[in-house]
């Protein structure tokens, strides 16, 4: 009678020990099968961090925006435009100014619109001839220079959505909230939005020699 009982007890103990050993092995190091599982399991809403991007953003004048519930900062624009307010010169409608300027070199002579084609865009697509201090949308509603992305997003919807989400455009400051992203015109010249070709800033001469 006694022997079977001890056997059972012994086997139970071994099983328990085995289970313990196994569970210990799996507990820490490889808790998740993929990093996606880890992200899903450990994500936290309203994370409280000891760091923030406030001090990095301080160097730039910013304006807050809220696009479809996504809130972030973009650089303020108007103070960066060298001859703003535009109405300091644009006191009269464009046509009258043009007439007054006949024979002299026109202001903004250096701006040549290379954005879409002439059948799609001209100066007046964005600029308002009787109110140069603001821009206007396709349906003639006023758009502040600080929020010029609203103008761009009329045509560039996909880019706008990516930018709002964070997949398009450059992050400034830090990764920690609050978020500060470049607005369209910080990277793209609205009159000539394509990036230009240029030489790379680095060439490894040593590497070139070694690989020969």
């Amino acid at each position, binding site marked *: 009678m006694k022997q079977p009982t001890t056997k059972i007890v012994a086997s139970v103990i071994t099983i328990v020990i085995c289970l313990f050993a196994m569970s210990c092995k799996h507990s820490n190091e490889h808790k998740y099968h993929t990093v996606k599982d880890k*992200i899903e399991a450990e*994500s*936290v809403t309203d994370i409280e961090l000891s760091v923030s991007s406030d001090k990095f953003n301080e160097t730039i004048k910013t304006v807050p925006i809220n696009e479809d519930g996504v809130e972030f900062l973009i650089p303020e624009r108007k103070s960066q435009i060298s001859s703003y307010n535009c109405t300091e010169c644009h006191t009269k409608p464009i046509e009258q100014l043009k007439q007054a300027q006949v024979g002299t070199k026109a202001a903004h002579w250096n701006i040549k619109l290379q954005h879409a084609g002439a059948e799609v865009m001209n100066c007046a697509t964005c600029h308002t001839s009787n109110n140069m201090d603001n821009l206007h949308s396709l349906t003639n509603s006023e758009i502040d220079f600080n929020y010029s992305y609203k103008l761009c997003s009329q045509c560039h919807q996909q880019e706008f959505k990516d930018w709002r989400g964070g*997949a398009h455009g450059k992050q400034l400051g*830090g990764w920690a909230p609050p978020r500060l992203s470049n607005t369209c015109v910080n990277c793209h010249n609205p009159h000539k939005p394509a*990036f230009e*070709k*240029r030489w790379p800033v680095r060439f490894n001469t040593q590497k070139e020699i070694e690989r020969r």
Partner: protein
Amino acid sequence: MSEDNKKWYSLNLGRSKKTESCGCGKTSESCESEKPKDGYDQIMDVPMSRRSAFKKITAGLAIGAGAVSTACSVVSGDESKEKSAIEWEEYFKGNYKLMTNEEKDKTVDRLTRSYELRTGKNLNMSSKDAEEDVLFGYAFNISKCQGYMDCVNACVEENNQDRSSEMQYIRIHEMEDGKGFNFEESDDNYYHEVPAEGHFYMGTQCFHCDNPPCVEVCPVEATWMEKDGIVVIDYDWCVGCRYCMAACPYDGRRFNWKTPEVPEEEVNKNQHYLGNRLRKKGVMEKCTFCVQRTREGKNPACVEACPTGSRTFGNLLDPDSNIRWILDNKKVFRLKEDLGTEPKFWYYMD
């Protein structure tokens, strides 16, 4: 830690300046004494982690004795006494992973002080730990990268990489359209106007895998993944075996074949123990997601430098972060996903 190995020179142990001594190599003399080490020696010599020091490991105690005698000597100056004391303590310090916060502070103090003694300049070195609820991740837009390489330069400057050997953590591969991700045929050292017709650009660096094979193979546990997901190296514990370099399927790790040199005026003084502090000959190094910046909330230098916005960095555990939006809304992929290394570095296209 002193790169010029003042400790041993000042004691005049019969070794001249190591100009181009073997990287364990075959230059005529003295690699022969690299015999297997016993337990005591393993602890004793690893923190030095200079191959040259291994050669005469038996001199270890003499060095210690020498340091003590310098420290107690009445003839040597205060500075050299302090130097010896620092070197003595640095010599016997442990693996960073096992250090208490107090010990971390102490070694940071010693390293900054020894730099001050050496150059007269002050460093700002940190040993800041990982933040709670943070897991760093990175996304790279291959439709946007134009191959300008501004990131490479920024990285070299930020991370005090050796200038003469052109040590770089980032590689920008110029790939031909229609050939897929063919690293064999791509060029990472192009010099012509970019973007070149019919090509796209893809940057690689350490991907900070969540299941890092490099960590697995390290025989001395000198490399590990921090809680915020950054794979780091303790440069003072690394023995330079380069197992990790062989284990990495992404060519993410670099080895210091020579003593790294950075002109004094170009040294980035804002440092982290696990990040961009000055390295030595014979140790591994690699991208640390700029731990000295990112633990303060800043973006890595490459993100800051990129003029095209191809690079996004952020907290994977924050559902409102840019990086999470990319993962959730764009079609993302990683390199060699089938290996199960789980890189935290995603590529995507517009």
